[in-house]
């Protein structure tokens, strides 16, 4: 499915690193090189030990549903085409929690359900989202990541991207 993204992030600094990587279908987390804990959303300082030394790691994309809501009302005209849609809080296996849509399961999901990362692809933007984890299955994203791991560490991360290519949106 190809949509034009309704809402385009214009991130700064470390958030831009995260979003640039997302365009390569990589979910990046920061990991503290002092205490070893990983975190999200991006921050210059480790929220656990306050160190400023960190490395970016590729998340596995595996997690469980911490909570969810099904939006039945569009809080902005831009997302009317999605209604109803499910918003998740996902606890990633690396520890951090993140927000993402549930793509493949209409209705109310169960908290605690394993989910797996799948990028939502618009014509010009990729947004991290989730699908219900099918045991033994292998998503396109996971296969791509495996190929990348075999090749090496993946594409280098751009440091100074300012905007994730905005395009007109139909909701305007």
């Amino acid at each position: 499915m190809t949509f034009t993204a309704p809402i385009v992030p214009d991130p700064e600094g470390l958030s831009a690193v995260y979003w640039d990587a997302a365009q390569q279908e990589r979910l990046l987390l920061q990991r503290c090189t002092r205490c070893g804990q990983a975190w999200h959303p991006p921050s210059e300082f480790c929220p656990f030990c306050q160190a400023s030394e960190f490395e970016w790691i590729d998340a596995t994309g595996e997690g469980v549903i911490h909570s969810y809501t099904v939006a039945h009302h569009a809080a902005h005209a831009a997302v009317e085409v999605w209604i109803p849609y499910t918003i998740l809080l996902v606890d990633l296996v690396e520890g951090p929690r993140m927000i993402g849509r549930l793509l493949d399961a209409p209705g109310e999901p169960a908290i605690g359900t394993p989910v797996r990362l799948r990028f939502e692809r618009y014509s010009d933007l990729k947004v991290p989202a989730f699908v219900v984890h099918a045991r033994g299955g292998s998503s396109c994203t996971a296969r791509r990541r495996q190929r990348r791991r075999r090749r090496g560490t993946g594409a280098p991360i751009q440091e100074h991207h300012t905007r994730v290519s905005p395009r007109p949106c139909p909701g305007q």
Partner: protein
Amino acid sequence: MISGVGMTELSSHSDQSELGLAVSAVRAALEDAELEADAVDGFVSYSYDRVGIGPLQRALGVPELRLFAEVPYGGGASCGTVAQAAAAIDAGLASCVVCFRAMKGRSGTRLGRAERHLETEGGALICRGARVPGGVFAAPSGLLSPAQTMALWAHRYAYDQALDRDRLSEALGAIAVTQRAYAQTNPRAVTRGRPLSMEDYLAGRMIASPLRVYDLCRESDGAAAVVVTAPRRSSRRAARVVAASQHLFPYSDPLPVYPPDITRLTTEREVGDLFAQARVSPSAIDVAIIYDATTIAVLLTLEDYGFCPRGGAPEFLTDGQHGPGGLLPVNPHGGLLSEGYVHGLNSVIEGVRQVRDEADNQVPGAGLALITVRGAVLLLGVEG
């Protein structure tokens, strides 16, 4: 102490500007305090407020300000502004501080919608910053409103407490229905004349599951103001600030989704410190005014402050203990759900009215009122 309170009419469309609304509310509060504008030497406002302190000073004719401050993180500023004002007065920085909030919250910028977070640039809709909801880690996934964010709290609470959907709806509905009933005898309430039954509640439109339209506060146009002074400044009966504090824990700014436990809006330490400072226990509280942007915040707060054991709020609510004659009347003005929404400062005013024994739905013998919001808390008592 709080020596005066004032509010404008609450409506869905005010003809006044936000500055005009602010001036009306502050004048009413000063009149209530039997003070003139030249007595004011401080203003504390919400960071979200669009009325500048300088323009308000000129509009009211306040000759000199010694204290001016803004409190961030949304509704936390309701109790937060008063806590700052009380602390400034205790410290001798000022002697008469006005806290205010003026907003065209229904006809202007609506806090329940996402337009305020987004900008149109080159035909695209852009989000910036990291705030939840509406920032770059939330908006592209459609997390756009406070109601959606609080719905995440509600589902997690139900999961943690093994509460099925019907029980959760009964508990949240009990808040909405009781507060709407209170509002029927509050002349300021925007929902007066429109009572709500549990059947109506359950038939309400789902906005962000499990929250229905009646679980959400009523966006309004209006303004509220509170005058905080040193003791014995006013000849009228005033409300004594027994305890006041602000409170922030990591990732609680402004709406928690990242803390380990998203079903607690404060911490045990904060609550313990508050009751220790006031030298009372939760059972001493006669009336609770709880910031109710949505019903779930009321349920969680009842447990946070020890009015119910963990997991006990649904039973407390379905038993009607928050209603008239219950163990702890909650939001007897109807709350933000049913009186209207001046970003919680109208609820602070209800707390003042209760301890002054002049509320529309007066809790008999209300000597101690707890007023709380995620981010700040006040305990008000009877002066003297």
